[in-house]
């Protein structure tokens, strides 16, 4: 048995050791075939693992990823955090990065145009660095249950309590464009956490099934426990989401 631990020999093979230990190992390798074999085994393993995944580097990058990092002028991601000079939306004591991701879509320009302009139909507006639900969206978040008939412009997905004990609800907007998002209740209004372009809901498809990934992630990051069941949802609404 040689006097070097397996971890030391591994670190040597990975080029991690300082000169002194390296010299000691090289001396040992010269007259102890066991040490030499152990180092060789580590090197071979490293080369094989690396080779097993090298093919990925030669694959073309899918367009949906490439467009994410295209220059700002054409970027599909609307970075509200950066627009506000890195200030963050405050959701009670919990600080969440405010990121609103809009998936690449021809609808994006139209969508931003409709929603960000303060038209009478605007469904949110910026208030003190936060995006607050307005109009039909605010109304639906306040009063509509997930079980409501699906012919309205806003459908509610799941409702839950976040880690601050505030209520949050996912929603699906179907106006000129289709979008989905998450809003949480604080200081008496609904604060948008994320809004993303979403596939249009057709027929009776449940909103939860159509939630874009950024919304699902925002839910996962915020949720405390399980979503509210229909009875708890109705009770929370009747109590004014307090």
């Amino acid at each position, binding site marked *: 048995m040689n006097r070097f631990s397996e971890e030391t020999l591994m670190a040597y093979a990975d080029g991690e050791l300082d000169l002194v230990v390296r010299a000691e190992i090289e001396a040992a390798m010269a007259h102890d075939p066991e040490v030499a074999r152990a180092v060789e085994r580590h090197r071979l393993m490293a080369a*094989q693992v690396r080779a097993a*995944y090298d093919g990925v*580097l030669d694959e073309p990058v899918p367009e949906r*990823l490439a467009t994410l990092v295209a*220059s700002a002028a054409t970027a599909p*991601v609307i970075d509200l955090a950066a627009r506000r000079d890195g200030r963050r939306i405050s959701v009670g004591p919990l600080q969440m990065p405010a990121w609103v991701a809009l998936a690449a879509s021809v609808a994006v320009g139209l969508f931003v145009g409709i929603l960000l302009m303060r038209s009478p139909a605007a469904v949110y507006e910026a208030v003190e660095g936060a995006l607050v639900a307005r109009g039909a969206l605010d109304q639906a978040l306040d009063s509509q249950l997930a079980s409501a008939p699906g012919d309205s412009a806003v459908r509610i997905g799941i409702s839950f309590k976040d880690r601050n004990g505030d209520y949050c609800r996912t929603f699906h907007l179907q106006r000129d464009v289709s979008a989905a998002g998450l809003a949480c209740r604080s200081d008496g209004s609904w604060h948008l956490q994320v809004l993303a372009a979403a596939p249009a809901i057709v027929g009776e498809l449940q909103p939860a099934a159509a939630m874009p990934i950024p919304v*699902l*992630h925002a839910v*996962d990051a915020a949720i405390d426990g399980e979503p509210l069941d229909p009875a708890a949802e109705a009770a929370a609404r009747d109590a004014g989401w307090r």
Partner: protein
Amino acid sequence: MSTTTQAEEVRAQIGELLPRLRRFARVITRNVADADDLVQVAVEKALARAAQWRPGSRLDSWMFRIMKNAWVDEIRARRRRERVHAPEEAGAAVGDRSAAARDIALSVQAAMARLPEEQRMAIALVLVEGLAYKDAAEALGIPMGTLTSRLARGREALQALLGSNGET
């Protein structure tokens, strides 16, 4: 650097890193579709938080850390949704190579897929991405000692799995 300039800098650098981010995602998710979803989520997060990146520090380690955290969140969420994950799907394209090299690549991928998450991440960063132990430990948010022990245990397990399929 102004926020806007930094955001543009981060965006440009992430663009160059995309092939490596996809490779790292492929190792840790073991699945092509999950891997690209993970890259997308991580890139969106990184762009939204571009102001938090320290200029001069390694952007790749920073991205790997965001990806690792996003993946850990995703796994937790899946467990909550009780969605079953199929781990054994062949992860990476093995490309144009000799049949022997392809066989080795496929058995290495299969063996990697069976490692515990934490060992696979350590191996992905050090052996596949070539990060120094220090940078890998930082990306994973763990002490160096923990990293080396995960690496050693992961390698040992790989050796056992690959050795039992016949020596190469």
